[in-house]
């Protein structure tokens, strides 16, 4: 008889809510008549994410002390709960952004089911406390994302994006798995804290395993030099999927990386801090320089997300409590800005029926004032301008690097930001600065005003509110991040 562990259902609740929604949506796909399928599916997914959001908030409130649950398989603490809040929030906004997309009707419920499944996987992934659950969570959400990338088979590049993501992602997963095996071989333990307790500071097997695990996670963070799949997958995937990938995946991968490195490898801190700092510098350099040359806005944003991976790895490299706070705080406006920016791109795409480039973005600012101002805010936020949370995110990241004693990392970050000004402002320039004569006013399908899309508008409005609000309401957010960061052994 296999002993049955005690299952703390509440600790798993956010993940279960989204899983439940995914299951329900598969039923919707067959039971609900076609006419009602789209609203029913979207409502179901939205409800799933909303429930997960609420449960994660409750979980955070009820888990002031970090513990493990379900036979040490998952953590129950605020670090994971806060990351789940973000993932669920990203999912809910992604549902709003997806609603107006022209999906094939027969696929629409499956789409939302996969979105919920991906969210559930991420929620499980962020609370993983041993290498098995870590890998399980990673594969769970990755497989859902591979399919999501390729789901719109009418879209040129969608299949290609899915395939590329699948192949490169599989390499990443394999690397992570192999690394986990090496770590297990060296330490004889699967749980993060026991690996840490096993020590083995100068064990070359453990160090090799650490390097491979780090690389495997960096694939998901899309940090350079593990970012090769990012531009193609982001460009080819349906834009709402890209929005979700750019925001939620990053939350999950970064939160887990930070926890894994601190908990399982405290004895190797001198090694991985340098490694992470190196990856951060590489991402900042590659992301920012490559983005300069892009004309396709989705591709530009993809490279910008690579550079932001670098930015958010700065607090990880700092390995101090301020860094923990910095990472969680930074993720809040970052998610909002990514979702919002891709949302605006999606709106333009639906209007034009063509991929959005800097050229055909011309005049958006004047034609659609709300979307224009929103996009403008997101770009300034990415750039780290005041009045957006992006500014304080960068500020916190720099502060963490300084506290670690690495002022040179600040200089690298500043250099990256200066370069990034060129392409972020190029988007603003494209939207507003063209002469009226140059503005090629939209080749609309059948004339009339641009398609109304209140769901997308609402999604972008939420993102705008979070981006700007996180600048003013710093104190509560940082307090939440601080109590979450207490769960990690700094």
């Amino acid at each position, binding site marked *: 008889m296999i002993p049955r562990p005690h299952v703390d259902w509440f600790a798993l609740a956010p993940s279960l809510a989204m899983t439940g929604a995914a299951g329900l949506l598969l039923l919707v796909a067959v039971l609900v008549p076609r006419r009602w399928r789209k609203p029913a599916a979207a409502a179901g997914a939205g409800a799933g994410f909303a429930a997960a959001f609420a449960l994660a908030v409750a979980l955070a409130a009820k888990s002031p002390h970090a513990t493990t649950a379900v036979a040490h398989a998952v953590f129950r603490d605020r670090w994971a709960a806060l990351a789940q809040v973000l993932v669920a929030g990203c999912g809910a906004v992604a549902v709003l952004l997806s609603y107006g997309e022209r999906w094939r009707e027969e696929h629409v419920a499956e789409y939302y089911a996969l979105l919920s499944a991906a969210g559930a996987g991420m929620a499980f992934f962020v609370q993983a406390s041993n290498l098995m659950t870590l890998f399980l969570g990673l594969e769970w959400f990755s497989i859902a994302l591979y399919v999501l990338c390729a789901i719109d088979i009418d879209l040129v590049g969608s299949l290609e994006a899915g395939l590329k993501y699948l192949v490169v992602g599989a390499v990443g997963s394999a690397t992570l798995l192999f690394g986990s095996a090496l770590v297990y071989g060296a330490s004889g333990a699967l749980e993060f804290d026991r690996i840490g307790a096993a020590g083995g500071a100068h064990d070359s097997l453990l160090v090799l395993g650490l390097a491979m695990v780090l690389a495997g996670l960096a694939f998901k963070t899309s940090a350079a030099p593990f970012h090769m799949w990012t531009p193609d997958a982001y460009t080819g995937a349906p834009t709402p999927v890209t929005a979700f990938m750019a925001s939620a995946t990053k939350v999950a991968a970064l939160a887990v990386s930070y926890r894994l490195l601190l908990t399982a490898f405290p004895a190797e801190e001198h090694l991985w801090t340098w490694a992470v700092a190196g990856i951060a510098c590489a991402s900042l350099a590659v992301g920012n320089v490559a983005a300069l040359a892009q004309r396709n806005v989705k591709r530009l944003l993809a490279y910008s997300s690579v550079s932001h991976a670098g930015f958010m790895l700065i607090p990880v490299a700092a390995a101090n409590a301020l860094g923990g706070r910095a990472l969680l705080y930074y993720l809040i406006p970052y998610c909002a800005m990514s979702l919002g920016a891709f949302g605006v791109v999606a709106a333009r795409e639906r209007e034009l029926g063509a991929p959005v480039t800097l050229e055909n973005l011309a005049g958006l600012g004047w034609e659609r004032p709300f979307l224009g101002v929103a996009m403008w805010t997101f770009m300034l936020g990415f750039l780290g*301008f005041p009045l957006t949370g992006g500014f304080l995110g960068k500020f916190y990241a720099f502060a963490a690097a300084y*506290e670690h004693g690495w*002022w040179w990392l600040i200089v690298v970050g500043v250099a990256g930001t200066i370069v990034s000004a*060129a392409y972020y402002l190029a988007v603003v320039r494209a939207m507003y600065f063209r002469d009226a004569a140059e503005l090629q006013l939209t080749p609309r399908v059948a004339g009339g005003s641009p398609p109304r899309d209140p769901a997308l508008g609402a999604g972008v409005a939420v993102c705008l509110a979070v981006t700007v609000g996180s600048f003013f309401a710093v104190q509560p957010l940082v307090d939440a991040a601080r109590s979450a960061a207490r769960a990690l052994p700094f």
Partner: protein
Amino acid sequence: MTGWLSTILIVLPVAGALAVWLAPLPRHWVGSLATLVSLVEVGFWIDAVRRFDFGSPALQLEQRRSWFSDLGVSWHVGQYGFSLWLVGLTAVCGAAACLYAWWVGRERPRAYFGLLLFLTGSIAGVFSAQDLLVFYAFFEAMLIPLYVLIGVWGGAARMRATITFVVYTVAGSLLMLAAIVVYGLQQGTFDLTRTGQSGNDWLFLGFAVAFAVKAPLWPFHGWLPDAYRESPAEVSAILSGVVSKVAAYGFLRIAIAKFPDPAHDFRVPILVLASVGLVYGSLLAFRSPDFRGVVAYSSLAQMGLITYGLFAANDLGFDGSVLQMVNHGLISTTLFLLAGMVERRAATGELALLGGMARGRPALATVLMTTGIVALAVPLSSSFAGEFLILAGVFQQGWGWAVVGAVAIVLAAMYMLRLISAVLHEEPGPAVTEAALDLRGAELAVVVPLVALLLVLSAWPAAVSGHSFLGLP
């Protein structure tokens, strides 16, 4: 109430901007609403002056609310004597710009006036901020409206102008951000009234480069000619009249006050840069082919002179600098607005195509003459008082600096007189037709108050120079 005044001076224009953007007003009401807000702002500033105790060296009209306690950052605003004068300059020039833009009737008024008000509010914020992070936030926020104002409403070469402008300023200000992070964490707070002094040369340079770009000081002035030429006239006016003073204020409030030792060590190099800028700017102004070019390069020269006063590092120099900041702000604003008015009449600012505008246009001639004469620092003018104080201050650092300064004042007379004669006198240029009327009532309503302020300051320069400093904060 007094605690709120500094906040009101910042928030009022920003709230006005939001009202202009969001309120469902008819188009022609937008300009008048914006102008009204900017005039109310001047009213609040007058009230602030009335309540301000110039006999006390302490921070006044102060307000402080915690923003995030984590790193000791708070919304902390307040005024010293010299910052109050600069806030006043902002309010007055902002109102003049609004009024002029209203009269000219810019396209897309909602966006335009909103941005103009937002700009005014953020500049007032820079001058009032007593917390480094708040200072930086406003310093950067200033850039957003300027970027769009130049990029959307600027002249033909506006793309190049905005790109160079942004690249220069963003590079400078991000170095300042790095310096702020390090300095604030070293000090344990970002509150300027609580931070101590630091001897770190790198931090000083981080701040100094940001301010040198913003001023601009030679050789950081690459963005200046394009930005000043391509902007709408009233934006150039604010850019050269007020925004450049932000840099001088930053030198005074942060670079010199918080880093006395590095400021001392770098005094000679900075004075050399200022001298080069002073002479080079004056010569370029003398050779410049157009109205705005003359004013733009004279602005480069004047910023060199103001830097002279700041790095003289004595009370004479500081007093002179603050007086000269106010003077130059008013002069530069007036001249750029006049440049805009002339360009509207002649459709060009090329000096070769202008000329003879004095005949039949007495108001234009009188205003331009008066401003030009104040600008070239004839004795009894306010510029004369300011420049005299600066030269007397810098003389104590070495007579050589004073000689360069004096030479530059002679050059200033040359370029100003050239400008006046090229526009007003000589044969009527091909671009000046009979249809080009004299200044209209509305235009006079914009520039005459500015000139009147200059004349008041000429009569009583001690209003500013005697009421700015009771020791560095």
